[in-house]
C-alpha cells in the first residue's frame, strides 16, 4: 500500500517536472520572440521607458512605415527592393532545384543505364564536402563567369545540391510499378511518364523539398554576403545587417526589419509545420 501510493506520487512528480521543463523551454523561446514583435510596433519613446513594456500599450505602424519608405543612402532604394530580390532569387532557385533534381532522381529510381550505381555513389560523396572548402573556389568561379553582384550567383549553384536527387529518388522508388506500366501501354514517352504520372503522384515530396529549399535559400547569409556587393542587389537577410549599421540606435526600426525578414519563413513554417517536422524526422535534413 505504502509503496503503491509512493509510486503514484513519484509518477505525478515526474509528470510535473516534465511539464515544468517544457514550459520553461517554450517560455525561453517565446519571450524574446514576443518582445521583438512587440517592440516593432512601439514608438521609440516607449521602448526606452523604464520599466520595459513587452506588449505595446498603443501599437503603431510607424517603424514599418519608416523602414519601408526610407530611401537608403544615395541610391533611392528601400527595403522593398531587398524583399523583391529575396522573393525573386528564392522562387527562381527553388523551381530550378525541383525540376533538375526530380529529373535526376527519376533517372536513378526508374531507369536502367550503365554506370548507374557508380554514378549515384560518386555524386553522393559530395554530401561529405564541407561548405567552407567550396567558398573560395565558388567565388572565383562566379568571377570567371562574370556573375559577381548578379542574382545568377544565387540562383544557379543550389541546383548542384545532391540532397534533392536523393530525396526524390527515395520517393519515386516507393511508387508502384504498375502505374508506370499502365502509362507505357497508353503510349506515353519516358518524359510523359515522369511528367504526367510520377510528378503528380509525388506532390507531397515535391512540396517538402520545395519548402526546405525555400527556407535554405531565403535564410542564407554567407554566400550572398560574399558574392553581392551593391545595395540594390542584396537579399533581405544581408541587407538587414547592412541597414542595421545605419539605424542601430533606433531599436523599433531594427526590430521591424527583423520582423519583416522572418515573417515569410515563419508563415511557411506555421502552414507546413507538419510536413517539415515529418521530413526532418524521416530524413534528418535541414541540419545545421
Amino acid at each position: 500500500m505504502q509503496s503503491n501510493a509512493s509510486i503514484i506520487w513519484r509518477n505525478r512528480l515526474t509528470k510535473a517536472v516534465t511539464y515544468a521543463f517544457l514550459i520553461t523551454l517554450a517560455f525561453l523561446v517565446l519571450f524574446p520572440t514576443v518582445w521583438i514583435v512587440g517592440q516593432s510596433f512601439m514608438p521609440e519613446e516607449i521602448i526606452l521607458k523604464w520599466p520595459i513594456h513587452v506588449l505595446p500599450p498603443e501599437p503603431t505602424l510607424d517603424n514599418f512605415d519608416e523602414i519601408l519608405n526610407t530611401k537608403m543612402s544615395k541610391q533611392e532604394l528601400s527595403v522593398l527592393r531587398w524583399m523583391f530580390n529575396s522573393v525573386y532569387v528564392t522562387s527562381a532557385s527553388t523551381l530550378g532545384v525541383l525540376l533538375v533534381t526530380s529529373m535526376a532522381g527519376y533517372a536513378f529510381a526508374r531507369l536502367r543505364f550503365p554506370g548507374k550505381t557508380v554514378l549515384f555513389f560518386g555524386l553522393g560523396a559530395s554530401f561529405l564536402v564541407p561548405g567552407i572548402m567550396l567558398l573560395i573556389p565558388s567565388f572565383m568561379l562566379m568571377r570567371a563567369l562574370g556573375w559577381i553582384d548578379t542574382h545568377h550567383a544565387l540562383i544557379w549553384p543550389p541546383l548542384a545540391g545532391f540532397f534533392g536527387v536523393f530525396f526524390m529518388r527515395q520517393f519515386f522508388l516507393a511508387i508502384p510499378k504498375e502505374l508506370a506500366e499502365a502509362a507505357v501501354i497508353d503510349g506515353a514517352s519516358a518524359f510523359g511518364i515522369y511528367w504526367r504520372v510520377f510528378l503528380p503522384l509525388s506532390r507531397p515530396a515535391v512540396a517538402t523539398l520545395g519548402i526546405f529549399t525555400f527556407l535554405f535559400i531565403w535564410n542564407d547569409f554567407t554566400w550572398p554576403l560574399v558574392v553581392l556587393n551593391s545595395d540594390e542587389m542584396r537579399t533581405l537577410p544581408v541587407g538587414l545587417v547592412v541597414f542595421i549599421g545605419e539605424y542601430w540606435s533606433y531599436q523599433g526600426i531594427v526590430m521591424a526589419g527583423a520582423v519583416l525578414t522572418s515573417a515569410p519563413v515563419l508563415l511557411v513554417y506555421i502552414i507546413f509545420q507538419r510536413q517539415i517536422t515529418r521530413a526532418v524526422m524521416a530524413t534528418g535534413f535541414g541540419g545545421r
Partner: protein
Amino acid sequence: MSVRAQSSTASDASPWTLTPRRREAIAGYLFLAPYLVFFLVFLAGPVISAFVTAFVEWELLRGTYRFNGLENFELMMEDDLFWIAMRNSLYFAIMTTTGNTVVALCAALALKSIRPGHTLFRIILYAPVVLSISVIGIVFRRLLSTFGLVNAVLEAVGIDSVNWLGDPNIVIPSMSLMTIWWGFGFPMLIFLAALYAVPEPLYEAARIDGAGRWAILTRITLPLIRPALLFIIVTQFIAHIQVFGQPYILTQEGGPGYSSYTIVLHIYRTAFRYFDMGYAGAMALSLGVVMFIFALLQFRLLGRYTEY
C-alpha cells in the same frame, strides 16, 4: 550526322539500333544530364580548384598567380591569428555541440512522455530553427547588450548584470548560448524520431524487472539511439566549427579584440578583405580535409553500430 552515316555502313548487328534497353539508357542519361551539368560546374569543379588554390600564391589585387608549393601551409603554421581563430572555433564547436545535444535530448525525452500539448510544444521549440542567422544575430545583439533585455531581467531578479558580448571570457559562451537557442530544435526532432523507433516491449520488460528510470535511460534508451546521437554529435560539430554569421554580426567580426575571432571569419577576411586567395584557400582546404575525414569516420562508426 557522321555517326549515322558510318553506322549504316557497318555490320547488320549495328551497335546503333535502338533496342528498348538502349532507349531506356539514353532516356536515363538525358534525365540526368541537366543535373550533371550543374554538378560538374558548381560542385566538382570547385572541389578540384580548392586543391589547386591551396598551393598557389594568388593575390587578386596584385594579380600574382604562381605555384608556390607548401608556402601557404608554412605561413599558416606561423600565423598567430590562425591558431587563435582555430582555438576559438574549437571551443565554440565543443561547447555548442555539447549544449545542443543535451538540451535537445532532454526536450525529446520530455516531449515523448507527455500527451496533451505534445504538438504545441514541438511546434514552438522547433520554430527558431527556420530563422536566418541575420535575424537571430541582430536580435541577440540587442538582447545581450549591456542595457539589453537579458540584463534588465537579471537585475530585476537581483543578479548582477553580465557583459555578455564585451567580456573576452564570456563572449564565446554567449555566442554558444544563442546558437543553442537558435538550433536545438533540429537535433530534438532527430532524437524524437529515434526514441519512437525504440520498441515499446523493451521498456515494459525493463519495468517488470523493476528497472528505475535512470537505469532504463542509460541501459536501454541511450544505447538504442546511439546512431542518432553519433549522427547529431558529428554533424553538429562539423557545422559549428564553421561558425561565421554569429561573430560577424554579434561581435562585429570577432571582438572584443580577437576573443570571438573564428577560423571561417579569418578565411573570409583573408579572401575578401585582403584578397589573398591562395592563403585563404590553404586554410579552407586544411579545415575541409579534417572535417571530411571526420565525416567519413562517422559513417564507419554508424555502419558498425546500426547492426542490431
